[in-house]
């Protein structure tokens, strides 16, 4: 994974982290409208960023913007625990 991809992924991880923390906060403060509007704002940002990433580097979600007509990249692209090494080698079964 090159530095550009790494920083794009980090952007997604940061946005999703902010969203997740807000999510847990909303679980115990379900009528907090400030948190609700912040959630909506971050959620829109995440969707855009994630879609852009998936188009370029492959799927994060199976049915997301990384869906490709020619190959099931979900299985072929590297897994998160060895992305820094470029993932495992492709094997034809």
């Amino acid at each position, binding site marked *: 994974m090159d530095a550009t991809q790494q920083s794009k992924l980090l952007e997604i*991880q940061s946005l*999703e982290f902010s969203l997740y923390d807000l999510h*847990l*906060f909303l679980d*115990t403060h379900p009528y907090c409208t400030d948190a609700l509007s912040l959630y909506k704002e971050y959620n829109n940002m995440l969707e855009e960023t994630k879609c852009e990433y998936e188009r370029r580097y492959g799927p994060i*979600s199976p049915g997301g913007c990384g869906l490709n007509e020619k190959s099931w990249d979900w299985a072929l692209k590297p897994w998160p*625990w*060895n992305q820094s090494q470029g993932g495992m080698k492709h094997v034809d079964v």
Partner: protein
Amino acid sequence: MWMYEKKLQRPINIRNGDVRMAKAIITQYGGPDGELGAAVRYLSQRYTMPTNEATAVLNDIGTEELGHMEMVSTMVYQLMKNATPEQIKEASLAGYFADHGRAVYPIDGGGNPFTAATLQSLEDPIASLHEDLAAEQKARATYEYLIQLCDDPDVLEPLRFLREREVVHFQRFGEALRQVQEYKDMKKVF
């Protein structure tokens, strides 16, 4: 149900192997205060919670724990994957290697396999939520012990992140407990 997202909650790229550290960190996968136990505890307790808010907290923290289990496993995998049999023997992991090779398997720091005997799930929500508050504190303490054992920034950063999450979870469980207590008090007034 759950859908997998093909990424970690936080990046982990450990450049240098360290079997001794893997042996210590693995307890946060399969040990008494580890992430697998946390996920099973919260996801089991959620069915009998009296309020929707408390159910949501258990459901969502239980889900995040699954992600943390993946982070801990990733650390163990990356720390061990290039280890030589010699390094494995030096770290007193020959027995582990004989049983699993370099695969990730849920055990505690002493090598005992994961057991649900170290966790509880009670219909009494006050008792369960107190167990959860204690679980978060015990996991925080364990991460602090691991941080004391570690000097590699590639490993320290994810450990610090995970420690911090225990603090946030403790906060949310405290709020859930207060709400459940208020709900129970309310029901006593006719």
